[in-house]
């Protein structure tokens, strides 16, 4: 069995087409090969669901005339197979066109009557003596725009309702199409394998009688697989996430939810070119900005804990600092406080030459560990930045993706980690697995570095190096 489950149409379009049943309700079974549908009826459809409904290539959101489709998604799991059935219902209503007399229903005690016609199964809940009421069950076999009577007994005159329903005709094509983020995920899916599959493969091929590990709990294997993935994520896997953000007036941005470490922060100019924002040691972020009394003693609250200021004065001063005074991008007549060359300020040092560390105008950032946020220098306010950071790859549980180029390295890591933590395994065996892990990890790094000879030589041309190829 091949690894590709989708046909080309499903892969490229992320969609499935159906013919309508011609009724007010169409139950559509979503193919298991495709990314599962997500629908949260309590949320705004556009913000949560990952698919759109089209009828004859017309997107049905928001609810459009003539179908006014409402939908519900049922996901069931039986014998390890997940089935999703999307039910599309077209709007049905009944409007009273002729008032009757003698009906018993009241708002407090509505009485149900069946509309005479169709398959005699559309139900009106009557709340008034004239037969006024609402359609509570749409029934089947009724025609759009046709009038039907409510039953009338002795002493009653029949109320008449006009039935309004427009089922999607059998000649129409209903298409369910995944939205772009889901299709994009799908496109790059084949280069990855899931952590779940790696664990299952490892249990199958490495653990058991007559195998290198005769017995191991699956929990132990899961632990080492996840730890391995964490380690690989830091320096081997291409798991860099890039957020595009604008720096607000308070000059700080919270750390991303799955942040482990930053790779690079850059601000983006009008041409889309990035300019690296460097971290600085010129200032710091106090973790405990204490409130003191006039003797300099920190004050405490009723619980005996130190009272801390909401705002650090160091941070405040840094935010208010004129960065030109630091970088030296001033005219000669202006003081640049830190590196001032006036004769009475010699204690600050003299400017004999440029200091590359501070002589740049891209701005600075620090990490404020008290607030868990990046803090930026004032010259970056309102600028567009990109935040490149690494995560540990475990934010999404067992479905975490692992590049196939690092799959073997991960198996070796798990094998080494498990054998090295056990007693009674000969040391030469452990060392063998250690070397094996090292070699495969290096291979994985080289593979994922994506070094292509043609690109390499192109760079070297600029360096006046001749590479024969």
């Amino acid at each position, binding site marked *: 069995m091949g690894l590709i489950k989708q046909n080309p149409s499903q892969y490229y379009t992320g969609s499935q087409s159906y013919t309508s049943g011609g009724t007010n309700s169409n139950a559509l079974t979503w193919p298991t090969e495709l990314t599962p549908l997500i629908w949260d009826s309590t949320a705004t459809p556009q913000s949560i669901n990952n698919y759109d409904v089209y009828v004859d290539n017309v997107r049905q959101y928001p609810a459009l005339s003539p179908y006014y489709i409402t939908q519900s998604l049922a996901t069931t*799991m*039986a*014998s*390890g*197979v*997940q089935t999703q059935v999307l039910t599309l219902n077209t709007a049905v209503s009944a409007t009273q066109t002729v008032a009757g007399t003698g009906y018993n229903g009241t708002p407090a005690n509505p009485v149900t009557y069946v509309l005479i016609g169709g398959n005699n199964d559309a139900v009106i809940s009557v709340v008034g003596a004239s037969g006024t009421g609402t359609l509570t069950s749409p029934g089947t076999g009724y025609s759009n725009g046709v009038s039907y009577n409510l039953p009338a007994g002795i002493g009653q005159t029949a109320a008449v309702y006009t039935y309004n329903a427009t089922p999607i005709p059998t000649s129409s094509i209903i298409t369910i199409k995944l939205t772009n983020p889901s299709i994009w995920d799908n496109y790059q899916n084949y280069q990855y394998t899931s952590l*779940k599959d790696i*664990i*299952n493969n490892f249990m199958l091929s490495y653990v058991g*009688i*007559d195998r290198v590990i005769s017995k191991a*709990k*699956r*929990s132990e294997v*899961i*632990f080492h697989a*996840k*730890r391995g993935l964490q380690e690989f994520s830091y320096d081997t896997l291409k798991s860099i996430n890039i957020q595009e953000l604008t720096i607000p007036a308070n000059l700080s941005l919270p750390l991303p939810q799955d942040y482990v470490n930053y790779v690079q922060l850059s601000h983006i100019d009008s041409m889309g070119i990035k300019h690296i924002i460097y971290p600085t040691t010129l200032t710091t972020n106090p973790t405990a900005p204490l409130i003191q009394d006039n003797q300099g003693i920190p004050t405490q609250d009723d619980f005996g804990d130190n009272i801390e200021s909401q705002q650090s004065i160091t941070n405040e001063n840094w935010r208010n600092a004129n960065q030109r005074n630091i970088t030296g991008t001033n005219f000669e007549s202006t003081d640049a406080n830190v590196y001032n060359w006036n004769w009475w300020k010699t204690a600050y040092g003299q400017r004999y030459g440029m200091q590359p560390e501070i002589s740049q105008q891209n701005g600075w950032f620090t990490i404020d560990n008290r607030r868990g946020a990046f803090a930026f220098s004032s010259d970056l306010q309102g600028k567009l930045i990109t935040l490149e950071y690494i995560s540990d790859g*475990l934010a999404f*549980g*067992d*479905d975490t993706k692992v590049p196939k180029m690092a799959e073997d390295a991960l198996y070796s890591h798990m094998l080494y980690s498990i054998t090295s933590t056990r007693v009674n395994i000969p040391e030469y065996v452990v060392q063998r697995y250690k070397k094996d892990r090292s070699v495969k990890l290096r291979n994985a790094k080289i593979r994922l570095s994506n070094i292509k000879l043609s690109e390499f030589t192109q760079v070297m041309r600029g360096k006046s190096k001749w590479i024969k190829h």
Partner: protein
Amino acid sequence: MAINVNTVYTTVLTILNKEQRGYLTPFEFNKVANQVQLEIFEKFFEDYNQYIRMPKTDVEFASRMDHIREEFQVFEKTGPSITIPAGSAQTDNVYNQPSDLHRFGSASWNKGVNSPSIEILSNRDYNQIKLSPLTQPTNNFPVAKYQQDKLTIFPASSPYASDDVTFNYIRKPGNPRWGYQVGALGQFIYDPTIFQPDLINANSSLAQGLNPNFTAATALAATAITPGVTAGVTITTANAAATGLVITVSINNGEIVQLQVQTPGTGYSVGDVISFNGSSFGQAGTVAKCFLSAPNFNSGSTFGSTDFEISGSMQTEVVLSILKYSGVIIRDPQIIQAASQELAQDEVNSKR
């Protein structure tokens, strides 16, 4: 292929009688046969464990591992958990094991994609793994505590159903039974019908349940009738689906003298009543009734046989083991010694 219980019993009797050592009654045989089958059955798993640790071969017909697996594969089953009482709803993540489970093998979780197997943990291990965020159970990697014949499965995810979990297990073999009826001379006649507790005894007589009988006096030749089908014969039964009973009726001197079961049918139970309208049998104005009682069914009689479930390759071991116990029953040390020696030799050969 199972071992025919009659073959074993007659072989044992032949060996015992040849030596003029005594007689093993069917009752004794059935008890001993059950004991022997369980002994051999339990030994499968000990042998399997030993073979796993011995050098192996993959040559066809020579692999002891394959052979022993073949021996117990007939007892291997998969099935969902059960609810107690039967038919009630599953309300939590505690699942009862199947009622016929003898040895637990593994369990799989049907709420995970492709039904992943459930890792069974001790309470202590479970308490440890749930503390680590890396090892907490998920639907893809579920875990369970196995206590009090129940699996408590994590993660608990509502709604619950008894088929959320599938057990893979070994069931206990059925008790072998040499079924019989007593002949006219007091001899035991083998009944090859497969034993079912609620099956009417095949070829037995129901005449003792007649009350009242006919009172008129017209003779009638033996006639096969089907209650509920044949005119004038009705049956009152608790189970509407009961069907298939065919009996032969003989009337003499105004009374039903013979009610011989020809085909036992299915679904009948104690308390069912077969009514004979006399007008259909030349006995106008009178009615005969036959009440089915416990001795009319396999469970309340000696009728119905069950073969040994272990495979035919174990037949010699079964016979020898029964002989060994027969020696104990009839107090003959020679039989015990001879049978034990043979068994020991077999054992040595199979483990060498």
